[in-house]
């Protein structure tokens, strides 16, 4: 498992760069992760990320776009604006979670 350094944080990641250890994440790291993929985090982004983190703890899997929309209450359109092109993967990356596995 590779270790990579993001803005001074040493974190364990998978081959693509997604964090593999839930507890190595914090909000300052989220800012750094978001910067790496060209997203400037706002409070709105952070509330989505907070939902993903909590949902992962509850269910042991990363929420899909549909789940963030229906359970998290953030409309699909808005998710595509906040995390352009690939919302599911980008949300998961910034939240320090694995990519979602669900089909829908």
């Amino acid at each position, binding site marked *: 498992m590779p270790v990579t350094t993001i803005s001074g944080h040493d974190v364990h990641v998978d081959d693509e760069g997604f964090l593999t250890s839930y507890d190595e994440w914090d909000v300052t790291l989220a800012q750094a992760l978001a910067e790496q993929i060209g997203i400037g985090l706002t409070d709105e982004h952070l509330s989505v990320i907070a939902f993903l983190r909590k949902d992962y703890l509850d269910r042991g899997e990363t929420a899909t776009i549909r789940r963030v929309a229906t359970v998290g209450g953030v409309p699909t359109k808005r998710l595509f604006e906040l995390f352009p*092109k690939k919302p599911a993967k980008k949300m998961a990356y910034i939240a320090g979670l694995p990519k979602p596995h669900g089909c829908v």
Partner: protein
Amino acid sequence: MTITQTTPLVPSFDDVQTDRKLAIICSKGTLDMAYPGLILANAALGEGIETHLFFTFWGFELINKKTMGDLKFTMLGNTATHMPQGMGGLPWMTSIATSRLKKSIADVGVPEVPEFLQQIHDSGGHLWACRMSADMNHLGLDDLYEGVEAIISATDFIDMTDGAQLLFI
């Protein structure tokens, strides 16, 4: 073994600039055959791929406001249910098969057809209706789901999907 990276290892979300485009022709109007196109369209949109769905012939059932929430599944002619075919013709058997399939789909968290179309529309997917099917059924844009952008001819569809990967379902 632990490998320490010198430069940050970051997923390459936008590095590969792709003009990949997907076009899906939905030609079936049964509940079971509605889903493959919708699921693939939704997956493609989540990967940032420009996606077009073209509804034609029985596929119109999915976008006709009157029928889109009421698609059915029958075991008749479908040996993959592994039930005696004679049973499929019994009264209410299609209703029973339909409600069972709907339950299985709901159990895995997948929405019903109208809600799924909304999700695809909200994700930036393009929905098109076939001109000939509309004319045959005497339907206009007002009869169709609001997210349908236009009723277009086969020629228009071929023009607009230049360079796209094509799926016929």
